[in-house]
């Protein structure tokens, strides 16, 4: 187990190095730079541009800039935002709870709806339910988030008036947010209606962000369950006269869950990508919106740092998922 862990951790370093290089090159490939972005619509004089570019270190060769960036990273210094002059890590930590809250709710929603839907589709194979689940999940999977989110707003907020359009909580509530998780902070604030307001603001973005994972989980659960339901031990369990619930949910589901867990682990990447669009549309103050803004402004330290930290999170979650296999299914053993 330990060797496996060490081996996996060893692979993390080159991966991260590759990510820094990729993030660095991609943001520098976009035409324009931070100094130009700072000058805004009116442009600036060539002297002033040179002075600003020098101040920001943009007049040095790209390789020097990259190595310099790496050097600072090794000292744990992610740099400061060119626009706000705040430390990148500090900005990330301020905004990350909002993204986490949204992503957790989205994946929770995806699990709560996706698992039962997948199981039901597998058990009632080739029925109307099955076709509905397959059809709906295919649609959900192919739906562009920004369009889907706008449809949700138009229906639930504008036409029906059930949910607010955007934001994290109604503007009448103004309380400190020490944890950064609006549901928790609203609960602790003790203000009447705050928690309800926070919850109602969370529904649409969680639904928009959770749709793709929901579709993937439903489809994956269905196909894994179909596989498992054909196994001998399921027939044996049935023959023993166990209840339908016990056969499906205890004997079959546990074994079907392995591929599903892999998929859930992979969804963390999808969630972080999806968060960029979801947060922008729902005015959700998380890292997705922060990164989009930084790209527009060519805020190199924020883009590079944000991508790197997000990548670390995806890598750690995938590692955790790999280790979790052993817990879910004892037949898989790491080590030796």
């Amino acid at each position, binding site marked *: 187990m330990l060797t496996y862990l060490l081996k996996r951790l060893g692979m993390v370093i080159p991966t991260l190095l590759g990510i820094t290089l990729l993030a660095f090159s991609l943001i520098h490939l976009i*035409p324009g730079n931070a100094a130009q972005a*700072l*000058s*805004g*619509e*009116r442009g*600036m*004089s060539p002297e*002033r541009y040179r002075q*600003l570019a020098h*101040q*920001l270190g943009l007049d040095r060769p790209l390789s020097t800039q990259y190595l310099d960036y790496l050097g600072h990273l090794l000292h744990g210094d992610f740099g*400061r935002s*060119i*626009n*706000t*002059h705040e430390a990148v890590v500090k*900005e990330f930590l*301020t*905004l990350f709870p909002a993204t986490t809250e949204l992503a957790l709710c989205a994946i929770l929603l995806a699990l709560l709806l996706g698992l039962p839907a997948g199981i039901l589709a597998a058990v009632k194979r080739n029925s109307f339910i099955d076709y509905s689940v397959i059809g709906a999940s295919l649609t959900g999977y192919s739906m562009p988030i920004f369009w889907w989110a*706008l449809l949700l*707003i*138009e229906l639930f*907020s*504008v036409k029906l*008036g059930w949910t*607010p*359009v*955007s*934001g*994290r909580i109604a*503007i*009448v509530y*103004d309380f400190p*947010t020490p944890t950064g998780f609006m549901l928790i902070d609203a609960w602790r604030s003790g203000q*009447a209606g705050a928690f309800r307001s926070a919850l109602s603001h969370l529904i649409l973005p969680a639904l928009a962000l959770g749709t793709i994972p929901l579709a993937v989980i439903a489809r994956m659960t269905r196909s894994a369950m179909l596989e498992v339901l054909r196994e001998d031990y399921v027939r044996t369990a049935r023959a023993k006269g166990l209840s339908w619930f016990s056969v499906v949910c205890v004997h079959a589901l546990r074994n079907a869950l392995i591929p599903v867990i892999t998929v859930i682990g992979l969804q963390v990447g999808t969630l972080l990508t999806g968060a960029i669009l979801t947060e*922008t*549309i*729902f*005015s959700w*103050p*998380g890292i997705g*919106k*922060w990164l*989009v*803004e930084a790209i527009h402004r060519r805020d190199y330290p924020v883009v590079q740092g944000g991508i790197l930290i997000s990548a670390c999170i995806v890598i750690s979650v995938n590692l955790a998922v790999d280790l979790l296999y052993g817990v879910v299914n004892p037949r898989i053993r790491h080590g030796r």
Partner: protein
Amino acid sequence: MSAIFKLGLVALLTVFAGTASASKTLVYCSEGSPEGFNPAFFSTGTTYDASSVPIFDRLVAFAPGTTQVVPSLAQSWEVSKNGLVYTFHLRHGVKFQSNALFTPSRDFDADDVLFTFLRQMDPKQPLHRLSAGQTFAYWQDMGMDQIVARIEKLDPYTVRFTLRHPEAPFLADLAMDFASIDSAEYYGKMQARGTPGIADEKVIGTGPFQLVSYQKDAVIRYQAFDQYWRGRAKIDHLIFAITPDAAVRYAKLKTGECQVMAYPNPADIAAMKKDPNIVVYSKAGLNIGYIALNVEKKPLDRLRVRRALALAIDKGSILKLIYQGNAQAAKNLIPPTLWSYNHQVEDTPYDPARARALLVKAGLPQGFAIDLWYLPVSRPYNPDGKRMAELIQADWARIGVRARLVTYEWGEYLKRSKDGEQQAIMYGWSGDNGDPDNFFTPLAGCAAVQGGGNVARWCNKDFERLIQAAKISTNQAQRAKLYERAQAIMKQQMPLIPIAHSLEFTPVRKEVLGYTMDATAHHNFYGVDLAR
């Protein structure tokens, strides 16, 4: 919990609910987070809307909806005969706002003016640079170092600016956001505490609203400043709900989650105008889109040819198809919101027959071939350069002029056009300070021919004399006359064909009263009221 305590709590909540419903809160769906709250550091409209507009005042201001310079913190001023010395008489009894860290002990005076400008101007000033990379962007971009020689305090309520050379637009420069007046006392206190940076974040001004709190990417809260010198604002709370997506801002406006929204999608304007709950304000922006004709290139050096090309363009179709009606036809280089706009100038009509006749007279009955450069990017003053070029190409073909469409990557486009390679070229401008000089000098002045924005490369002695005289004169009425004459010359000489001033829109809900659109594209909520 004892019964009495519970009762007290209920009573408290009722009182709270009562005051909450009695107070007036205006929610504005803004388009993004400000870069910060000290406007001197930054140069975007988003930041100004959140900082200089609600929180601060300047020595002079633009009268609502115009670019007319009017008194603000300076009650009056005199300019010396030679245009070099500006003496400002400051208003008495102007209060600064307060916050948890600071309560002002004195009113606004000359020390605040000196602190504000010396900090931007003098590298030796201790607070000139707080953190790396932070610069007084606009002060430098407007070339203020080359304009201002010294600033002195004559007495607590009199300040004197001495300029290096006469510069009439200087007054308009002082109405710009970067010239917002800070409290010297507040910065002094924060510096003494060892945290001068705080004063740039939790800002204190003399403006109509004071900053309460800011949550990045989410919400900015302001409250009306009770002691505002022009009288307290009619609304009690001003809230910016930061909403980057225009479609979502529109949805929030429809549901009433906000009462005013920034920058609507042009495609939504028609639907908004039909909505009985929404009023759409519009105004010609401080911008111009035009086709410059390089007078150094044949046959554009001939006046008849330039006029023929102008007569052949069907501006009406361009306005309808390219701007979708969201623009105003342009006949001058400056938009009609600027003072000194020459209303007498007549717009060139669409008249291909006359255009053809002019070409015959010019000895070009067969027409000629020409390069037409089109914008590679969408600009506020021209949403779709390529399609506009295609329309013009078809218009010109009708009089036998064969246009070849040319473009380059944006940076390359600007560079090559400054070098003068173009024949006909699409170009445009967004103004900074609402002074006409900000359009005429950079776009049509003789100095701007060499490596400047005068892409028509047109240097006319009479025109130049007029705009130079207007730059030096400190009498606005006289300046306006000079600019009006300059516009007539420009129209007569046709170095460029003005196309359009794109409109700016601000949709508000019908319960919002007294909203005025700023000429400089700011969103200003002082003077706004809410109907019940």
